[in-house]
């Protein structure tokens, strides 16, 4: 496989919080325009992995490259400007701003757009997530589904090449989840590389072409979704954690 098709690469990522080893020597290659799902029991280190990829938390060791460029030394803002977009598990809206302004910040800062191209891009992100009607609402008045959609719209407005989704379906009802999955499927079809952490596995399986299972900070299975779900080690990890 030619290296230029590698959208995101992690080599030997490790992270400790005090005595707790959260991630241990994670190596991961994500091919451009693919959709990768990450599952694993609570405490497996999934969100920490996302934070290390996005630069929100510095890794103790290891490196991250985006399209072959080493971004290990860069913080979250710089990585975002280079094309790593992310959503947060617990939505983090800019509560004092309108929905449109939330997205506009992402377009002007992460997407480095100005003037009408920033406006147009923001409107497209609103449209792609079905939020056009909410543009003038203050973000702190939104319910959970809209907050999650705002997370997605904001990440999109930064113009990412790789999109990291952190449990975007958690806490949503079935129809709400279906709606979000449709948005994500369209984004994937449009050529975006997606890495998606999710506990709601049936939602994940509708998009992911490849599944990775994390447990206790290491990758215990990696491959086709069905093969991973049937892997005895994966079944063990889930049963063992009493999920």
């Amino acid at each position, binding site marked *: 496989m030619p290296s230029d098709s590698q959208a995101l690469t992690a080599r030997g990522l490790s992270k400790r919080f005090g005595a707790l080893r959260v991630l241990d020597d994670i190596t991961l290659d994500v091919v451009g325009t693919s959709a990768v799902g990450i599952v694993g029991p609570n405490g497996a280190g999934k969100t920490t992995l996302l934070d290390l990829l996005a630069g929100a938390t510095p890794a103790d060791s290891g490196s991250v490259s985006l399209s072959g460029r080493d971004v290990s030394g860069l*913080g979250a*803002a710089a990585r975002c400007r280079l094309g790593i977009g992310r959503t947060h598990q617990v939505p983090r*809206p800019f509560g*004092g701003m309108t929905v449109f*302004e939330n997205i506009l910040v992402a377009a002007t*800062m992460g997407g480095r757009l100005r003037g009408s191209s920033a406006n147009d891009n923001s409107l497209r992100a609103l449209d792609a997530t079905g939020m056009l009607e909410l543009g003038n609402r203050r973000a702190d008045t939104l319910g959970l589904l809209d907050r999650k959609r705002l997370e997605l719209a904001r990440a999109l407005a930064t113009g990412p090449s790789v999109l990291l989704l952190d449990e975007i379906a958690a806490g949503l009802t079935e129809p709400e989840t279906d709606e979000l999955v449709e948005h994500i499927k369209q984004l994937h079809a449009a050529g975006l590389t997606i890495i998606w952490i999710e506990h709601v596995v049936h939602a994940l399986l509708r998009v992911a072409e490849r599944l990775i299972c994390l447990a206790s900070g290491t990758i215990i299975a990696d491959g086709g979704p069905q093969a991973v779900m049937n892997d005895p080690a994966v079944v063990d990890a889930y049963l063992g954690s009493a999920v």
Partner: protein
Amino acid sequence: MSVQRWTRVSLLFSGATAGIVVILALVPFWFGPNTTEKLTELFVLIILAAMWNALAGYAGLVSIGQQAFIGIGAYAVIVFTDHGINGYVAVVLAALFSGLISLPISLLVFRLRGGQFAIGTWVVAEIFRLLVTNDQSIGGGTGRSLDALNIYAPADRQAYTYWVALALMTALMLASFVLLRSRLGGALQAIRDDERAAESVGVPVARAKRIVFLLAAVGCGAAGAITMANTLTVTPDSIFGIQWTAYMIFMVLLGGLGTFEGPVLGALVLFGVQQEFQGSGSWYLVGLGAVAIAVTLVFPRGLWGALVDRFNIRLMPVGHTLRTLVSRRSES
């Protein structure tokens, strides 16, 4: 679907503001030094309110130490004029010098967040007060008076001071309007609401904060320098005093934190209360506190915030509205 920033009301208002500035510029021809001295005090209050609002209301940087820059501005005028610089040139230079000093200070205080940042800025202000108090070359604890402006006749001097104050206020208000309207304004509000999320959408957090901190330092330095030229005398305890921060918080909360127009309204209210009750001793302070409590209880978003909620008006538009949605929102 289009993005709207200016409305007819806000365009009209901006035109009217330009007219008001022109009229204000003519005041020294019609009124005496008493009036221009009072109005100069008002300009100082407006500058301070706008600067604290840009810091706390837009960027979430709740500083209770901006008096550091007020004092640096005032004392810089003395030091510059001691070196033979013209008094009014020194006022402008002092404002810029204050901004320069804010850059190394930002390296220190930006390591702190929230309440720690607030206390940290206060500590910085106290350090400057102590440094000045212990420096006999600029008058030590007893303070100094500004002699460089005595080359002008008193009436002329008061008019010149007034014009310099008006010019600086106008320039600073314009600068903060342009800054808060720009894409950086949005970035600052994002930082205020959630710093980590702001980083995740590409906001260069430290740089954005530093720019607004610099603006506020220049503004507060200008306020201190103008106060120096207006009162001609200064003591470290008063110019580096925490009461400046109390005034700033009062004006901004009363007028409307995080609105562009509110702090100006708050400055007008504080100025009015000061003129009316300043002679009444401690009852004046009781009155200020009572007004602040009453307004924040009845109008939690400040006087201007309440007006915006009620009538949906914006005179100085720093935000964005999606056009076809305006009618829909007012229906709901």
